[in-house]
Structures are given as structure tokens and as C-alpha cells.
């Protein structure tokens, strides 16, 4: 057994950054491969996204046709169609819904396997979620945008900074969404079962992140409150508004900055909650 246990592992507790990056990258890869395994689910999900894309698009275009000036919430018809079709693609990249892995592991006690690893569960799950998002970016965005472009006139960006800003905004949306989902899942540490909070989240996040309708259709005070006081518009509405250039350049960049603040705050909150939970943790089962 010499080869097995010949030495104490040559691992320094003071970790060089390059090693941390390698670990993080490997975990991102694991998330990507995990989702790449389920091809039929990807296909079925894409089909559903497209069907709902048509529904949402026709509803919003009908609203636009009936609105005074034809521009409800300051969007013209092209912008609205783009909002819907890119939104249908981004929905799975941001992944607002359907993640209960952590809550399940807490409920069953499997979380113990995460806690005996030399890496924080928040970091490990974030990496895996970024891998999931990369997979969705490659597989889930193209088809609805393509279908949308075939059937409706879509808006294209006119400013040079829109594309890089949009890329940053999508990344921030993924991180913010992950942190929110992590927090909702983490309620299982206290409640044992997070199905209630998860149902509440599914209901609330879709409306308040701008999935069902652009938040700019709400009265201005409500829109501003949502943007400043909650991370939710940052999950979907902000990247879409950035892409369709709903606002002048300064506000466009400002929205991304606000989104960054919220992503950092939520991630820090997730880490804090995780640490609190570990202190009072009761691992379920023998």
C-alpha cells in the first residue's frame, strides 16, 4: 500500500491563486458535464421555451398595439419582441427555477459529504452552477432567438458598449440568481423542508424579475423600489434592458453597476447564512 499512503498530501493550506482557479475551473466543468448528460431534457426544455415565447410575444405585442403611442413602458414593438425571445433563452442560463439540490441534500443529510471537503459549499455550488449556465448558454439561447428572429422583427444593438455590458450583466444575473436560490435552499437548514419557500420563490421571482412582463410597465415608484431594494430585476430584466438599449448609455451602465452590488451582497449573504447554519447544524439521519 506504499503508493496509497506514502505521505501526507503535498497540499499547502495557504493556497496559491492558480491552484484555486484550477479547482474552480474543474468544478465549473463538472456542472457543465452534468447538464450535458441530459440531452433529451435540453431538447424538451427548448421546445417548451419556444412555445411559451410565442404566447408571451403575442400578448405583449397586443398590449403595444393597444397602448397610447404604441410604446408601453417605453418599449417599441421590436424591443418587446427581443425582450421576449432573448428572455426565453436567458431564462435557463440564469436558471431562476428548479434548483433544489441543496435543499434535498440538507433534508436527507447528504450535505455531510459536502462539508467534509476542503472547499466551502457556496464556492463549490457556485462553480457548478456557472458550469450549468455555460451549458445553457450554448444550448438554450440560440434556438428561441432564432425562432423569434424568423417570425418577428427583432431589435439589434446600436451602441458598441452594449454587447460587453450585456455579457457582464448576464454573468452577474447568473451569480445573483445562484445566491438567491442558495439562500432559499438554505432555509432547509432551519425548516428541514424548503418546498414552501421554493414554491414562494418560483411564484415571486418570475413576476418580480421581469419574466412575465417588463417591470417598466409598472408605475415608476414600484419599478424604482424593486430595482433598488431587491436583487430581483437584476436576474432578468436588467440584462434584457441592457441588450435592447431601453435606457441612455449612462443609465444602461448604472443598472449593471447596481446589479453588481446586488450580486455581491447576495453572495456574501449566502456565505454568512451557510456559516450560521454550520454552527447550528443537525445532520439528518444516522
Amino acid at each position: 500500500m506504499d503508493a496509497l499512503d506514502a505521505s501526507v498530501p503535498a497540499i499547502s493550506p495557504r493556497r496559491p491563486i492558480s491552484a484555486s482557479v484550477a479547482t474552480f475551473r474543474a468544478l465549473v466543468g463538472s456542472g457543465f458535464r452534468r447538464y450535458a448528460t441530459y440531452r433529451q431534457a435540453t431538447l424538451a426544455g427548448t421546445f417548451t421555451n419556444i412555445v411559451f415565447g410565442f404566447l408571451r410575444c403575442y400578448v405583449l405585442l397586443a398590449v403595444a398595439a393597444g397602448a397610447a403611442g404604441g410604446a408601453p413602458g417605453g418599449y417599441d414593438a421590436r424591443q418587446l419582441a427581443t425582450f421576449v425571445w432573448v428572455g426565453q433563452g436567458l431564462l435557463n442560463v440564469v436558471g431562476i427555477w428548479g434548483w433544489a439540490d441543496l435543499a434535498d441534500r440538507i433534508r436527507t443529510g447528504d450535505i455531510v459529504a459536502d462539508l467534509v471537503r476542503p472547499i466551502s459549499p457556496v464556492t463549490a455550488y457556485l462553480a457548478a452552477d456557472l458550469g450549468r449556465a455555460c451549458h445553457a448558454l450554448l444550448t438554450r439561447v440560440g434556438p428561441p432567438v432564432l425562432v423569434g428572429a424568423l417570425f418577428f422583427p427583432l431589435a439589434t444593438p446600436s451602441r458598441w458598449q452594449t454587447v460587453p455590458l450585456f455579457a457582464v450583466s448576464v454573468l452577474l444575473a447568473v451569480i445573483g440568481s445562484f445566491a438567491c436560490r442558495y439562500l432559499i435552499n438554505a432555509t432547509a437548514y432551519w425548516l428541514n423542508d424548503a418546498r414552501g419557500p421554493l414554491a414562494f420563490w418560483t411564484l415571486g421571482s418570475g413576476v418580480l424579475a421581469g419574466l412575465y412582463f417588463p417591470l417598466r410597465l409598472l408605475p415608476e415608484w414600484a419599478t424604482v423600489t424593486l430595482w433598488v431594494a431587491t436583487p430581483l430585476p437584476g436576474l432578468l430584466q436588467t440584462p434584457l434592458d441592457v441588450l435592447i438599449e431601453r435606457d441612455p448609455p449612462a443609465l444602461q451602465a448604472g443598472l449593471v453597476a447596481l446589479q453588481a452590488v446586488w450580486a455581491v451582497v447576495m453572495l456574501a449573504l449566502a456565505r454568512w447564512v451557510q456559516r450560521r447554519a454550520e454552527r447550528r447544524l443537525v445532520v439528518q439521519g444516522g
Partner: protein
Amino acid sequence: MIEMRELRKNFTVRVKAGRLRREKREVAAVDGVSLSIARGEMVGYIGPNGAGKSTTLKMLTGVLAPTSGEVSVCGLRPVPQRTRLALRIGVVFGQRSQLWWDLPLRESFRLLRHVYRVPAAEHAARLRRCQELLDLGDFLDTPVRQLSLGQRMRGELTAALLHGPEVLFLDEPTIGLDVVSKQAVRSFLGELGRAGDVTLVLTTHDLADIERLCRRLVVIDHGHVVHDGTIEQLHARYGSRRRLVADLDTPLPPGFTLPGATLTSTEADGHRVTFTLESIAAGAAVAALVGAVPVRDLSVVEPEIEDVVARLYTDVSGAP
């Protein structure tokens, strides 16, 4: 390598105390355990369900914070230094998986190399060794969710060893395994233990695991250590006796006694008798019996650890 002093873990449970009222009550899962385990020791940690075995293991690995007492593993305090400790210990939970469910075993191992920052050459050498000893070759490319329990457990053991841990904690590693897989796991652990570099703490309900692997046996019940010593000491302490079982041509004459032994059972109309040997050697007992009655067949039965432990559990549980 492992030190526990007056280690205690209380859980709060709510019990019904009226139609709507619920009372909080503190229950001690581990109640003042003190143990010291040296480098290279192989310790069996056993006890009935709910005795506090897994709770102790969770405190040793830094997953649960003790209510009071002191604990150190590899010179580190498990909870505050959990991440550092994780690099130096390996853990296998028989009822949980630390592998990535959707990925092939090989991928899980590759990920663990990154998570534990193991140099590629070291990782490859250890994996090769495990692959030989645990016969992983056939299913390295199978997703974990498709593995049988025996295959998965061999994967779990490998996963726990790839970073070369100093201490290996095994929580019921043979639970639910078939005879062949159990033997594979046991012989692997035996070989690991013989090398002497890895300290091994094993909880199990299968006492054959302990007999094959562990010189030292710690028995815990209701959160207390009730025995700490070798298996022989356990036998001596709880009065395990050998038994003499004899098939007779004719039943024993009335009033027959065997000095230094007690007749514990008579079956088959008196044609089969069992004596428990108290203070007489097996040879002398056989001679005395053969001299007294015609004997067709006889055997001397060694005491079984199962019986001793069963008695120990009932004694302790029945005690006020």
C-alpha cells in the same frame, strides 16, 4: 492522532406536553466521551442504533460542533479548522455518497484531485493502486448513478483515499453489501491497516468487520463508552465461555454433573446436551463426559462476539 476529552453533544428535541404545548428537552447523544487514538491504530467503534457513533464521527470530522468538551484530530480542532482538516482526513459514509451522481467514476476522481489539490503523479499512483486492489477497472467509466452498491462503495473508498489521508473515518462501510463485496472491502482495509500509516476509525454493526480488522474495540451506548480494549478483553470481561455440544447414544443419567461446567441445554429427548465450560479445560470436560456416557459426536464451540455484544447492549440498556 485523535484526542477526545469529555466530549459531549446535546440535541434539543420538542416533546408533546399537552394538546398544543410542546416542551423543549435536551438529549445527550454523546455524553462525556474521552478517547485517545494513536497513529496507525485501527479502532472499531460500535454500539446499538442511536448510541452516538455517527454523532461522534461527525464531531471528529468537523461537521457537528460539540456542545462541550475538547476534540483534536491531527492536531487540529475539527470545527474551526474544518477545511484544513478535510485535506488530512478521508471519510466514507456507508449511507451517503461523496461522488458526483451524474458523472462517471473517473470524472469524480479527477474532480477530487482538483478539490484536494493532489499532484497529478501522486493521484495517478494512488488511483492505480486502488484500481488493482478494489478491481475498479470495469466500471470506471460508468456514471455513479448506474453503479451497484458494492461498486459504488469501492468507488467511495477510493475517493476517500486519493489525497493520502492520515486518518480514515468509515461509517458503516459494509452496510448492505453482499458477501463478496464485504470481503473485498475488508481485505482492502486490512491491507491499508497493515501498512500502518493510516489511522482508521470504523463504525459498523457487522462485528465480523471488527474481528477481521480492529485490534481495539470501543463500545458506546447511550453516549457513554462502555468498553475500550481488545476483543479478548471484552470476552474476558463479559464472561464469554466456550461450550461443549455432545450428541449422546443414551440420555444423561439423572443427576449427572460435570465439575466446572454447567448444563445449559438438553435437546432431542436428551440425546443432545450443551455444557458451558466455566472452570474446566475443554480436554478434561471431553474426557469426563466420554467416561460417563457413550458419546456419538461432540464439538467445542468458541464464544461468538455477536453474543457478547448482544449481552453487553442489553445489560447496559437495561441498567437503570
